[in-house]
Structure formats: structure tokens, C-alpha cells
């Protein structure tokens, strides 16, 4: 039932959407105040989301489901798609995450982008992103979700390529969009399959119908949605775009490529829980993709010297944990979302912290330095950044008490109950995470100064450190969601109750084991990077695993060899076929037409047109004559 304040649900989306439109159309007129408007509108959405959230909490557990009908989007008489917004426990948490973290990052960008001449456009794109992301999580059917899905893809494209005078940025933007489109094929077909199976893409209809649909259709639907999720969430095999996406300004990496957009695939999986529950094969595929990605990303994170790329690899890996949670079914859905939220806090925190470091390490050329081999001993120069970053660090490695400890631990625990090897691999990933994050901390904030000449690290302005402090607090305290199993109970109306503890390793033992593995990871990192000075240039002669990791586990090479190069060859072959084959057969080839035309011109120099006309006229006369003859 839509009552009271829920009538304003549409405004949550409309505010940032209006901001994007005003800033884009305003041009120079909006130059002076545009960025402040762009910050105010998501904050407005956040306040509204808080009010909506608390109103929803005031309702009875089974009554927390609000659908606001806006208008009928597509109606062919046979199938109907309504533009409906769905506000339920799942979307309410996303609303808070997107508008909350989004607002903080808008404010941070005021400082970070202060000297960019195109900052108004930057803020317009950020607002566009927020509006699209909110559409994605508020949509009540897959087609409207797809609108938001592609909207965030567009915003991501625009923002990765924001500094598009750099060819690398432009190429990265295109790569991200095209790889996402591969995933979109899955969503498009999933939408079509929904229509043919259920006659609708509404979540309500699909959820109700899934139990009665054929196993094959549900497996296909689950796999198609998984393909889409792989694209958006940078899961293997569609992972290669995320590292390149770090070409975008750092607030973009924090908001889009860490906290919100890349987790949309997890949202999609959890939202489709009714389908996955009916498709064990698809769920197994989700688990396999997730485990492969969580290790793949972690391995990449170990070998990168670019601070943003370490964080990007870690994002891949952490989303792998969330996907794992989603693939584990009712035992994991709530924890997937829980980890998504805590990750949103601590990863946004660390990305913004990295941005603050880059800001402080800006060289004489005006470019922020991302190479950690040029950092070192920054904890004194940038105390606030260091302390807030440390909160994020402790959260991501799962230091007991910090938010990531609670959320990751729950997923690993659920994984142990699914199968021992899934649990073991997930735990191994936690150890690797501890290793590469400790490496990042040591290389950046500890050890010797390895600063380049002309670099004078300094703490960032308040407008940047303020959001860092808030996010650091959330990174530390995010575990509170779990208090009294609140999050499981809150999400239960959407994703179902987690099953009661079954036999297997007791939860406390899993926690202890995980902490031990993490401690081992930290220890190894300290032995390698803490005790010895870090070389200012990357060592060239390294063992093969490091080479593999530096090459992003050959993700690009695989794409290049098996997709891009064959595609290029196919294109040039088809061009030849078209020119000499198809055109040749039908018109005697361009040469014949050319020769014919040449002869024509020579003979009738200047009279081609009148000849063509008489050609036409003659044809019509002949035909008319034929008809008259036939008539009798």
C-alpha cells in the first residue's frame, strides 16, 4: 500500500535526475553554482531515504512492501510493462547506501575536482549515475531494472572516460561499456525468457511463478542473469574492464567501481532469489564464478604497484565473496547484502583515502601519483588519511570487531556448510587479502620515504577528510547491522529465512581459523615488505606467479587472442566478401559497374540523367502495355 510519505518515493530518483539535466543543459550558466546543487540533491535524496526507511521500519514485518505505480511504460496490448517503483527491505538498504555514500563522495569531489575546468560536467555525470543506480534498485520489474542498469553503464562510461583527452581513458571507457554489453545480452534474453514464460517481467509475477515453471527454463533464466551480473560486477570471465576503469577520477572509482555500481550484479542475483532457488545448476555456476573471481582478484591485488589497481583487484575479489553468498542460496542471501553494505563503506573509504594520498603526492606536473613505490612513510605527513585508511584496512582484512570481520566471516561460514572446499578456498582468499592489503599499507604509510623530487605530501582539505572520517566510522561499526541477527530478520520477507545451523564445523571454529589465516597473510607481508626496504622500482626478475599476477592473470591476453583478433579477422574477411562476393554477384562488382558507368559517361557525356529517366519511363510504359495486353 502506498500511503503517506511513500507517495514521495519517486522524488528519491527525480532529485538527482533533475540535477543531471540542469547541469548538462545549463552549460556556462550553471558553472558557478552547479556543483553545490549537485551535492545538495543527493543529500536531499538521502534525507528522504532515511525518512522512508524509518517509516518502513514502523510497519509490520510482512507489510514492508510498497509499490508506487508511476505510469505504463510499454504496452503492446499483449504485454505490458509498468514503470513501478518497489520499496521493500532490500531496496531500502540500497537506497541508504547509494544516497549516503553517494552524498559523501559528492562532497569529497568538491575538493578533489576543485581545479578541473570541466567539473560541472563531472558533477552532472555523478548525479546521472545516482539517479540511474536508484532506478536500478527501485525498479519493480526486470525491464525497468535494465533501464537503470544501462543508465549506470552509461554514467560509468562517461566518467571512466572523463579525462578523454588521454587515449588510455577513452579506450578504458569503451572497453568497460562493450564488455558490459556482452553481459547485457544475457539480461536482454532473460527479459525475453521472462515474457515467454510468465508473460511479465514483474518481480511479483516471476517470484510467484518460479516455483511452478519448468526446471530448464529457470536454469536458463538463472544463467542468463548470471551472465549479466558477471558483466556489471566484473566477475570472471567478464572481469577485464574493471582494472582499466581506474582511469577515471578517484571519486568515480570509489562510488561506481567499488561501493555501488559493481555490486549491482549481486543485487540482481539476490533480487532473483526465487529463480535461483529453483535452479540448482545455475546456483552452482554462481558459486564457481564467485570462487574463481575472489581468488583471481586477490592474486591481481598482490602484484600491482598502482594503489588504485590493488584496490580494484580487491574489489573484484570482495564482490566474489558477495556472489558466493548469493550462490549459497537462502543461507547466504542476507550475508551477501550485509557484506555488500560493509564493503561499500570500507572500500569507498579506502578509495577516497587513496585519492587523498594521490592528491597529496601530486607532482610538479599536476598529475597525482598512483605508484606505491613512490610513497612510504606517509603516516606522519597525512595523519587523518592514514588513520581513516587504517580503519578500512582493518575492516577489509577481517580484523575481529571491524565490519568486514562480521560480514566476511558469515559468508565463509555459510560456504563451509555448502561444501568444505568452497569454505577452504574462501578462507584462502581471506588470507591473500590480508597479504596484499598489508603490503599496500606498508608500502604507502610505513617504511622509508621514496618520494619523487618536487613532491611535498600534505594532508587534504577538510572537505575531503570529512567524508573520510564518516566512512571510517562506518567501516569500524558496520557490524552493528548483525546485532541480534537484525539484518537476516529484516531481509527475510524478501529472501527468506536462513536455514537453521546444520552439522559441520561450528561457527566459532570457522572464525578462529579465519583469524589465523589472516594473521599468516599479515605476517608474510610484513616479512617481505615490512622488514626490508621496498625498492623504488619494481624488480624485473621475478618468479612466474608474480608475472602471471602482474598480467592480470592474462585476462586481456585471453580476450585479445580469442575474441578481439578473430573478430578483427572476421570483419576484414566480411568486408572482402561484401565487396567482391555479394556486390560482385549482384552487379558484376564495383569494377563492372564502374566500367559500365565509365562507358556510359563517355558515350553520353552529360546526358546520363536524362537517359536514366527515359530508362525509368520506358520501363513503366512497357509494363503498362503488358497489362493492357493481358487484360483481355
Amino acid at each position, binding site marked *: 500500500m502506498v500511503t503517506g510519505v511513500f507517495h514521495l518515493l519517486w522524488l528519491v530518483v527525480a532529485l538527482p535526475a533533475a540535477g543531471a539535466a540542469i547541469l548538462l543543459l545549463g552549460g556556462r550558466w550553471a558553472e558557478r553554482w552547479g556543483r553545490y546543487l549537485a551535492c545538495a540533491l543527493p543529500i536531499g535524496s538521502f534525507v528522504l531515504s532515511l525518512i522512508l526507511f524509518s517509516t518502513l521500519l514502523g510497519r509490520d514485518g510482512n507489510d514492508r512492501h510498497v509499490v508506487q505505480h508511476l505510469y505504463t*511504460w510499454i504496452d*503492446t496490448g499483449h504485454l505490458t510493462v509498468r514503470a513501478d517503483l518497489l520499496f521493500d527491505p532490500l531496496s531500502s538498504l540500497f537506497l541508504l547506501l547509494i544516497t549516503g555514500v553517494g552524498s559523501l563522495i559528492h562532497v569529497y569531489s568538491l575538493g578533489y575536482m576543485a581545479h578541473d575546468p570541466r567539473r560541472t560536467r563531472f558533477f552532472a555525470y555523478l548525479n546521472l549515475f545516482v539517479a540511474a543506480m536508484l532506478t536500478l534498485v527501485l525498479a519493480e520489474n526486470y525491464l525497468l531494472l535494465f533501464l537503470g542498469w544501462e*543508465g549506470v553503464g552509461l554514467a560509468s562510461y562517461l566518467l571512466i572516460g572523463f579525462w578523454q583527452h588521454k587515449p588510455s581513458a577513452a579506450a578504458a571507457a569503451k572497453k568497460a561499456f562493450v564488455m558490459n554489453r556482452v553481459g547485457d545480452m544475457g539480461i536482454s534474453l532473460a527479459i525475453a525468457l521472462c515474457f515467454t514464460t510468465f508473460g511479465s517481467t514483474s518481480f511479483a509475477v516471476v517470484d510467484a511463478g518460479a516455483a511452478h515453471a519448468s526446471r530448464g527454463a529457470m536454469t536458463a533464466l538463472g544463467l542468463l542473469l548470471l551472465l549479466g551480473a558477471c558483466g556489471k560486477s566484473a566477475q570472471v570471465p567478464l572481469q577485464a574492464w574493471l582494472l582499466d576503469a581506474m582511469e577515471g577520477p578517484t571519486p568515480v572509482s570509489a562510488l561506481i567501481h567499488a561501493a555501488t555500481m559493481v555490486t549491482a550484479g549481486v543485487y540482481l542475483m539476490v533480487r532473483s532469489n526465487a529463480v535461483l532457488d529453483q535452479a540448482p545448476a545455475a546456483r552452482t555456476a554462481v558459486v564457481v564464478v564467485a570462487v574463481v573471481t575472489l581468488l583471481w582478484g586477490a592474486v591481481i591485488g598482490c602484484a600491482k604497484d598502482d594503489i588504485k589497481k590493488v584496490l580494484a583487484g580487491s574489489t573484484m575479489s570482495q564482490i566474489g565473496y558477495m556472489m558466493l553468498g548469493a550462490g549459497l542460496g537462502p543461507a547466504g542471501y542476507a550475508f551477501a547484502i550485509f557484506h555488500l553494505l560493509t564493503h561499500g563503506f570500507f572500500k569507498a573509504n579506502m578509495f577516497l583515502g587513496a585519492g587523498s594520498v594521490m592528491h597529496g603526492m601530486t607532482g610538479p606536473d599536476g598529475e597525482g601519483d598512483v605508484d606505491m613505490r613512490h610513497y612510504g612513510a606517509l603516516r606522519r605527513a597525512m595523519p587523518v588519511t592514514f588513520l581513516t585508511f587504517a580503519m578500512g584496512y582493518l575492516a577489509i582484512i577481517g580484523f575481529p570487531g571491524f565490519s568486514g570481520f562480521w560480514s566476511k566471516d558469515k559468508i565463509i561460514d555459510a560456504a563451509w556448510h555448502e561444501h568444505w572446499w568452497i569454505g577452504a578456498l574462501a578462507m584462502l582468499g581471506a588470507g591473500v587479502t590480508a597479504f596484499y592489503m598489508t603490503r599496500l599499507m606498508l608500502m604507502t604509510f610505513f617504511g622509508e620515504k621514496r618520494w619523487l623530487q618536487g613532491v611535498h605530501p600534505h594532508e587534504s582539505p577538510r572537505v575531503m577528510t570529512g567524508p573520510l572520517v564518516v566512512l571510517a566510522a562506518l567501516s569500524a561499526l558496520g557490524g552493528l547491522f548483525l546485532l541480534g541477527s537484525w539484518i537476516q530478520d529484516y531481509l527475510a520477507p524478501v529472501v527468506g529465512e536462513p536455514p537453521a545451523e546444520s552439522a559441520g564445523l561450528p561457527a566459532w571454529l570457522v572464525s578462529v581459523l579465519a583469524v589465523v589465516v589472516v594473521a599468516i597473510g599479515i605476517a608474510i607481508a610484513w616479512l617481505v615488505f615490512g622488514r626490508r626496504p621496498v625498492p623504488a622500482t619494481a624488480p624485473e626478475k621475478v618468479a612466474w606467479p608474480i608475472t602471471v599476477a602482474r598480467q592480470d592473470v592474462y585476462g586481456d591476453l585471453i580476450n585479445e587472442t580469442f575474441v578481439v583478433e578473430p573478430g578483427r579477422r572476421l570483419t576484414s574477411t566480411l568486408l572482402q566478401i561484401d565487396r567482391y562476393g555479394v556486390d560482385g554477384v549482384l552487379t558484376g562488382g564495383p569494377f563492372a559497374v564502374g566500367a559500365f558507368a565509365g562507358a556510359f559517361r563517355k558515350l553520353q557525356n552529360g546526358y546520363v540523367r536524362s537517359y*536514366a529517366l527515359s530508362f525509368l519511363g520506358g520501363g513503366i510504359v512497357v509494363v503498362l502495355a503488358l497489362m493492357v495486353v493481358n487484360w483481355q
Partner: protein
Amino acid sequence: MITTLCLIPLVGAIGSAIARSRPIALAFGLATLVVSIIAAARFHSSHQGFQETVDVSWIKDLGVHWALGLDGMGLLLVLLTTVLVPVVMLAAWRDHSHGWFSWALALESFALIVFCATDLFVFYVFFEATLIPAYFMIGGWGGPKRSFAALKFLMYQLGGGLVLLGGVIGLYAVQSGSPSYLLTDLQHVDMGTAAGRWIFVSLFIGFAVKAPLFPFHTWLADTTESATPATSVLLVCVLDKIGTFGMLRYCLGMLPEASHWATPVVVTLCLISIVYGAFLAIGQDDLLRLVGLTSLSHFGFIALGAFVFTQEGNSGSILYMVNHGVATAAMFLVVGYLVQRRGTASIRAIRGVEKGAPVLAGMLLVAGLATAGLPGLSQFVAEILVLIGAFDYHWWVGAVAVTGIVLAAIYVLWMYQRTMTGPPDPDPGGATADLTRVEVAVLAPLVAALLFFGFVPGPLLHLANPVSSVLNPSLAVDSAGAAR
């Protein structure tokens, strides 16, 4: 009313040719637009069948009637035509002489008659008549190879027209008693299966050359390369629609049995067109050829939507015709502005335009993403409906067609990356001026339509749905049965 609508531009063509005046031509273009809007306002979108009908016996001996009428599909294409003509005239203002404007009006008049004709003979005559202005527009204005392009265009179209004519004669021959070309009469002719299929084949080939579909497409890129962008808009966005329009109205509407019979072959041709056209577009170096070839892919989608025999596929197909017209027109015009500034259409020779001309780059991106079917822009709605229809027909048909969305992203964004991004051209004179206010004003209605109909496709679909439900009577019965 409807005869007036069709003849205003012809009067304008003659008038502006005599007066040698471009403003007069534009005035007539706008007058036609106004009349078409009045016609749209009087149209009852919920009614099936033709409205505003005119039926005057014309050539008694042949049973030819001057019969015109509007259904939803016809009205949509009429509106597309009457909107695009003034827009294109404004875009062509600077570098086209008055003769082009007169031909454009003549083309508009013939195209409107084709879209309104309810008599196959009238349809055929004006189908051929459109070639005359088109030929002169291609041959008279444009690139250095325009004579060749115009000749190739004409040869192809005449060839297709002759095959189509075979079908027209065939329809005459199979009628016993007093012959008639009225659509309503032709639908009830008992011509027998074999004759119906032969007639279908000849009509379909004629339309497939026009639309164009693989393998009848090779005139397309040569034409768009040499013609001016303004001419290309009228050719690809208006004239080529006659092909897919004819498939829906005459192949499906008149020869349903033969259409079902031919579907496997036609669907295959459509799928080839979608994938093949996209690959050819990816491989192009000439911007104008690229835009032309993207349309091959899109016509594959339109014809696919027509021949999968589902209501959503048909509605999507009709909608696609309109939205493709708007999106591709925007694409051609922006590319035209770019080519005009740089003096070349070669992608390799253009780079870093965004830095100096952000508005131009932005327009190119919006138009490009619209042709790539980005949700929120109008072509998406049509494309997803066609995909759903195709998937409904057979899952693998949908699965092949869906690759088009990836390929479209590649040809649009790769082109954008190479021409717009990167450091600006260091050559003196390499800087590109941004769009002027007038140029933005010309593009604005198209971009606004792309956005508006992306979010609110209702008005277009309400016109398309009655037509597609007439074309799929069995389906309507099915769903009625299911409802019970």
C-alpha cells in the same frame, strides 16, 4: 484532407522550382507538417482499419482506384516524413541550392502517397516515382563519386521495382472477373497457394532491395558515402522504410499464408543482415558509409520483427521504423556537420574533436547510443520488443539477434573513441569549431524525440498496436482464450 496532405509538397516542389526559392520550399514543408499534425489529431488511434479514406475510380479498365487512407502504421510514417523534411531542409540550408529543395518536396509528396495508398497500383506507381527525385538528389549534390552512386542506386532500385512489378502483374492475372487493386479486395482474392507464393516472392524481393536486406544491400553504403547527409536522411530514414512498410502491409497483410511459408528464409536473411551489417559497419573507415551500414543491421531488426508473427514483434517493428528514422537522421546530420568542418569523412583523419567541440561530440554520442539501443532512448523500446518477439518465435533466433546489441556498441563507441577522444589534432586548422546555435536547434527536436519516446513510447505504440493486432488475428484469439 489526405489528398491535400499528399499533394501540398508536390505543389511546393513545382512552386519552389519555378520561383527558384528555398524559403518557399521550406514553407511548404512546414505546411505539410501542420496538415499532418491536424490529421494525427483527428485520428482515432483505437480504431482498426483505415481512416480518412478517399476512393475515386482512376483507371477503370485496370480497376485502379485513387484510394488513400491512414492506419496507425501509415500515420506514424507520414509523421516521420513530415517532421524530417523541414528538419533536413534547415540542415541543408547552407550548402544545397534551391533545386535540391524542390526535389526533396517531390520526394516527400511521393513518399506520403506511398504510405497512404490503399490501392496496390497507386502504391507501385509512386514507389517507382520516388526514384526520380532520389536519383537527382544523389547525382546532383554530394561527393566526387556521386554519379556512379546515383547510377548504382537507380539500377538497383529499378531492378527491385521490376521484380515487384512482376508481383503486381501477377495479382492482376489471378483475379477473375472485374479486377481491382484495392487492398480490401486483394485480401479476399482466392489466388491459390502456388500463385500466392510466387507473388510473395516478387513483392518481397522488391521490398528487400528497398529496405535493404542482405544480399540486396550493396547499393546502400555507396549511396550514403556519396550523397550529402541531408539526402541520406531522406533516403535511409524515409524512403527505405517503404520496403519494411511494404513487407508489413502487403506481404503479411495480403499474403499471410505465403508469408508463413517463407518465414524461415526471411528470418535467416534478417539475422544475417543484423550481424553482417554490424560487422561491415565496424570495419568502415568512412563515417557516412558506417552510418549507412548500421542501417542494414537495423533493417534486419525491423524485418525480423515483422516476420516472427507475434504481436509484440510487429508492434516493435513498426515502432522501430519510426525510432530508427529519428535516431539515424540525428546521426547523419551530426556526422554531416563534422564532415563539413573537417573536409573529410575518414575516421583515421579525424581525432580529438571533443576537446574543442564538446556539444558536437555530445550530440554524436547521444545519436550513436540511440542507434545502439541504449535504454532511455527510443530505439531501445522497439529493439527489445523485436527481441522478445524473436525469442518467442524461436529462442535461437533471439539469441542470434541479441548479438546485435554488442556489435552496435562496438561500431558506435569505437568510432566515437577514434574521432572524438584523445589529444586534439596538432595540425594548424585541425581545431574543430563547435556546433552553432542554429545547428543545435536543428538537432534539438530529434534528440528531444529520442529521449521523450524512450521514456514515453505510449503515443507511438497506441498507433502501432491496432495494426499489429490485425496482422496477428490468431494471437488475439489465443490471448482472449487464455483470459477466459
